């Protein structure tokens, strides 16, 4: 699988660009992954990414969309706690694109 050199660090990603080792993640790696996704990271993007990592740390899976929208509503205001806003931040879908930037494995299934 491809090894990436970025910001003086090297890390491995899989064929779809997901980080292979969770422990390799840092903000520099996230910046690289976001750039690959053509996502410009704002404070709101970081709030989502940080929540995903926190949740993953506790439950070993990314949060369900409902759980995520509720958390976003708490942190960024009720008008932003919805699927539409998350798609504005992460156009390819919050579950997959935001997880990728957060360095989490790709959620797969019938989703």
């Amino acid at each position, binding site marked *: 699988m491809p090894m990436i050199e970025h910001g003086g660090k090297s890390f491995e990603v899989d*064929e*779809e*660009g997901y980080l292979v080792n969770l422990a390799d993640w840092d903000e520099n790696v996230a910046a690289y992954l976001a750039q690959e*996704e*053509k996502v410009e990271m704002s404070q709101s993007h970081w709030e989502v990414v940080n929540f995903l990592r926190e949740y993953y740390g506790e*439950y*070993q*899976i990314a*949060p*369900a*969309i*409902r*759980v995520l929208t*509720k958390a976003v509503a708490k942190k960024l205001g009720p008008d932003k706690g919805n*699927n539409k806003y998350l798609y504005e931040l992460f156009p*390819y*879908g919050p*579950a*997959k*694109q935001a997880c990728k930037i957060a360095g989490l494995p790709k*959620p*797969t*299934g*019938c*989703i």
Partner: protein
Amino acid sequence: MAAPKFEVPKLSDTAYTDVPKIQEGSMSHIKSFIAPQAPQEFLGYPWELADDWKERAIDRMGQLLGKYRSLRVFMDACVHCGACTDKCHYYLGSADPKNMPVARQELMRKVYRRYFTLPGKIAPWLVGAEDLTKDTLDQWYSYYHQCSECRRCSVFCPYGIDTAEITMAGREILNHVGMGQKYSNEILGKVQKIGNNLGLPGPALEDTLLGLEEDIEADTGVAVKMPLDVQGAEILLVTPSADFFSEPHVESLIGYAKVFHAAGASWTLSSHASEAGNFGLFNGNYETMRTVAMRIRDAALELGVKRIVVGECGHAWRVAYAFWNTLTGIGYGGNDPFSIEMQKQLDPRYKQPMHICEYTWDLIQKGVLKFDKSLNDHRTITFHDSCNVARGSRMGDEPGGQFTIPRNIIKAVANNFHDMAAETIGESTFCCGGGGGVLTDDLIELRVKGALPRMNAYNAVAKEEGVNFLALICAICKAQFTKVVPFYGFDMSQVGGVHQLVSTAIKLED
């Protein structure tokens, strides 16, 4: 992820999809990611081609031909009449002639003739028999992952050849030589290790369900519960794990919970069997399908439930309806001690298993559920028959119940319903384009092109009747359409579940 580089097919002016002029090799570049070592090893398959791959492939093909007489009949019976050629959504959407079912099957049939028929052994050039080469194997990998096992072609085949079975055999042989598909095989690992296709561990499931209970109460003022692992509950609900995780799937889960609440039912979900789906079917491996199905029997025995109800999942219902009794003794037929125990435990007054639509429709007919249909007035609804439900199972006691019952539910909870063109629904329904183990990002081109016939039919009712909601009873259909309708100019919020409509209109009491 970079924007996909392919041309999205153009919608036609009618509900029908014109048969395209063939474009040889237009989809030959399609190659789903190959499964790496870990999932292959877990499933007991190699993960790379060994020197003896050809012998292994022929050997496995021989075993399958011996085990499934149907496969041998399907290999022998085709007369190349061409009735199937324009019936496949992938051919209609991609124009690649190898996606005509007859041509896709021919990839295996020519090898079958060479190694398993006398004329093919002695005079292969006379009967179109060919050696199995690496090039053919690669074509198998490509094109057996460009079939969603939807069986539409089989409806039109005068011999009733089941293309899906040939695809399944192709995938099993590919797995056997070390060319598994990453998407399906990782899922088959997760469902066995964690309990569901998503890999949602028990604590995450519990947290998610608690959150949903809060949401429903905030929304309705009624404390509707989502019980988990309740010993002695009457009903076990098994549903696709996407129902816990994704939009719009979760809206249907909320719908089931409201129905159970309104009926005063004692019910539970199981963390051990937190998945109805069974990708063992897609892979054509009976043992895997059985292992995955056994989780549900184990959970039912452990919890002591009297009924098993299956949520909105197309292939799960086919496995439950058509295979569970012989796979696991749920229903009728199993005569091992556990099956006998299971039969004593399950309530014989009810269908075992029962589809959630049968459950809800039964309650509607008995007058147990009350609705305010006007709450769905912002929607004009059509219903997409899921392939595995339409062509692989039934609901209710009447022929065609799998077509009428979901529609009856919709009409009971909403005022505006219009069917799509007759040739595109019911038994002739088109696949969503993402079924049978191809619902993965690395096959997005295939998924978008394969959705064309359904999109044409939907577009016609959207234009003529103002339809703005595509109602579904399958997790794969929901995920697939949510992803692909925007390619055709529709908003993803037009996609949802039948029980999402139930959820909108149902009247609840404390």
